[in-house]
């Protein structure tokens, strides 16, 4: 393929935008779903209040990235949107149900008295189930629609097409990853006992996530012929080796910066390094995501549908491109501003409204 062809490849542009949307979603809603996953491990009401308040001003914006990912798939790759959503009907529905419960918990928990334990339950279970479903959908997409099932009839296939040992594992992997992001976020946004607790959980989750990343990688390489060829043929492994090496490096840095010592020891030094674990976790996600793309590209549905065969006509792609080029940077700017307004520790957050 010549360079000029690549520069004007609109479907490729949208593939990258879709990737960006998914990554932003995983990063941003990842840490706030993760807060819900970690919720049961913080027992006192005060801790739960802090956890909830730390994300109540951002969850809505974070979830918007899920809608954005959905509509980009719909607008740019309608055929893939149609096939994927109808084939994975059940996990998507269960994810949506779970997101409803955890979403409304934000509004009602602070206004409730007797029903508070129910909202705690709705928030933590909803977050956990949503994260698990997302992980399972990811695993199911990587495995693709089984050979022998026609893509046009995949939605009529067994209700349990998405439940495989592999997708169950990716479900747990994504859950662990989200919880790690949340631990990093909490570590950055809290102080004293809460911060130390976040660091302790963060370290354990780091180990678990590394295990899952390794297991998923080895499993796909054994299981998926195409991915194996891409990783292991010729010198490819050499070019791709920075992905696993950097992952291990980032994990080591995050481990070290998760300071579990008592905060009194050296306040100032600690303050400087507080953001590191979160950004290392984000880096781990980015590397994992890159590894995934290396395996899947250029397929939206492995072996069946490429980004070019699923793409909408140019008239649609061109029209939307202007909007993306103009508005996406603006969105990033005011999202950043929003986080800046609420910078500082959650212990200082006031009650809202």
């Amino acid at each position: 393929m010549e360079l000029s062809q690549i520069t004007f490849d609109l479907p490729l542009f949208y593939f990258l935008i879709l990737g960006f949307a998914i990554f932003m979603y995983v990063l941003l809603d990842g840490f706030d779903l993760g807060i819900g996953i970690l919720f049961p491990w913080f027992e006192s009401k005060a801790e739960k209040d802090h956890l909830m308040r730390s994300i109540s001003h951002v969850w809505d914006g974070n979830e918007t990235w899920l809608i954005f990912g959905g509509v980009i798939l719909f607008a740019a790759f309608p055929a893939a949107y149609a096939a994927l959503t109808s084939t994975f009907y059940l996990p998507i529905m269960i994810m949506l149900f779970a997101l409803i419960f955890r979403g409304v918990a934000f509004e009602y928990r602070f206004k409730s008295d007797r029903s508070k334990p129910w909202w705690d339950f709705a928030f933590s279970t909803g977050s956990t189930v949503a994260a698990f479903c997302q992980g399972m959908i990811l695993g199911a997409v990587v495995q693709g629609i089984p050979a022998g099932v026609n893509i046009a009839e995949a939605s009529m296939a067994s209700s349990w097409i998405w439940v495989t040992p592999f997708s169950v594992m990716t479900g747990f992997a994504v859950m662990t990853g989200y919880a790690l992001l949340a631990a990093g976020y909490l570590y950055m946004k809290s102080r004293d006992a809460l911060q130390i607790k976040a660091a302790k959980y963060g370290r354990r989750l780091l180990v678990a996530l590394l295990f899952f990343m390794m297991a998923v990688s080895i499993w796909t390489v054994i299981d998926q012929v195409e991915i194996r060829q891409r990783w292991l043929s010729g010198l490819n492994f050499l070019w791709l080796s920075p992905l696993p090496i950097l992952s291990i490096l980032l994990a080591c840095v995050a481990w070290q910066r998760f300071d579990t010592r008592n905060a009194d020891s050296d306040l100032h030094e600690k303050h400087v390094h507080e953001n590191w674990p979160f950004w290392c976790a984000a880096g781990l996600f980015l590397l994992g995501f890159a590894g995934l793309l290396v395996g899947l590209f250029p397929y939206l549905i492995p072996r069946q549908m490429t980004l070019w065969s699923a793409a909408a006509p140019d008239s649609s792609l061109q029209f939307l491109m202007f909007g993306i080029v103009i508005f996406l940077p603006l969105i990033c700017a005011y999202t950043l501003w929003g986080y800046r307004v609420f910078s500082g520790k959650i212990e200082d957050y006031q009650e809202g409204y």
Partner: protein
Amino acid sequence: MEFDATMLSRIQFAFTVSFHIIFPSITIGLATLIAIWEGLWLKTNNPYYLQLAKFWIKPFAITFGTGVVSGIVLSYEFGTNFSRFSEITGPILGPLMAYEVLTAFFLEAGFLGVMLFGWQRVSAKMHYTATLVVAIGTWISSFWIIAANSWMHTPAGYEIVDGIFHVSSWFEVIFNPSMPYRLGHMLLATMITACFVVAGISAYYLLKKQHTVFAKKGLSMTMWFALVLTPLQAFVGDLHGLNVGQYQPIKLAAMEGIWPAWEESVPLLLFALPDMEAEKNNAEIGIPKLGSLILTHSFDGGVQGLKSVPPEDRPNVPLVFWSFRVMVAIGMGMIFIALFALVLRRKDRLYENKWFLGLTVSFTPMGVIAVLAGWYVVETGRQPWVVQGLLRTSDVASLLPPERVLFSLIMFVIIYSLLLGVYLYFMGKLIRKGPPKMEQLEQQLIGMKAPGYALAWVKNLIHEEKKRGE
């Protein structure tokens, strides 16, 4: 009616979209009212405006939140339940919805955090900007979704290539023939809905003799708005009706219960029981010739009737006919209340007349009911088409095993019933609690000067100082 997967998908979509529309139809107008109050507070320094804004922001928050979670469902349901529809119309509807997300959803969500939780973290002006941006975001959102929906009623600017819709002119797609009327009608509806919610609760406080100063302000303002907006809505609705007559005559025939293939001197039916089998109305009560006058603006204007198309191309007539009457009746009731308020105001009895206050309380949910009824007219009136004249609803649903759709439908019914119950319970709780006290408001305002990050830095410093001191 056969309960196959297609029928179940249609029921599920109708159910989920009906549930969803309840919430935006309140929040679009309410966001605008809150922005108006906050702006008036900044301009006049009258604390009662701030009290109005700070009270109504709470119902706004829970309404908005419920709207968000029920809205996410819809953005995936196009694909899960109507995969063939999304594949065929994706190149047209996809970009419109993507623009909605890019220009509205992110804007609303990005500034909502500051609007709800940022009172002490940004300056008063910045906070007002956030409120204003959220309100504008809700309007932009309506623009795109109405454009997409209107295109399904009056498709334009498209060509069909290999069974897929391609766009030949985006301008014609967005500003399709019914779009301006539908947008105007819907935005007015949301403003009126919010006005009657606020008026109803204010009237309730006045009846109970609680928070009277606050309630008088709310009732008086919204009744002024209603006086202008409700007659305007009748006018826009009439224009919209003419547009329907031009582009979707069968829908109009169902709305008015007109059976003959062509009828001149159409009566205005106040009551009728349309019988689809017999192709006629039973128990008609009507005013002669008034129908023609309204539909064609002439006493003998002819109108195309239902029998001009075969039965399989007709919508469910009783449903369209009665939904339309419910909407119009509520609209008339609202015009009456607005005029009643004007008369009472001139006699200085607006805040005391028990009949008026009681009637206004009973109209608290009427805006929402009218919006729902109106959407039933629009959407069921278009059937059996999903894209008017081009695509049948029965041809575009996903191929799914019925039990799978039945499962999700049952879950939606359970979850949404729960959600509605909880929503009403907490609304009741907020209303019983009443507006924030004046002293409380003043205290909250003290910390409103410094920007968030500066404040956070200072607080952290204080915390560290304390630790060192120990």
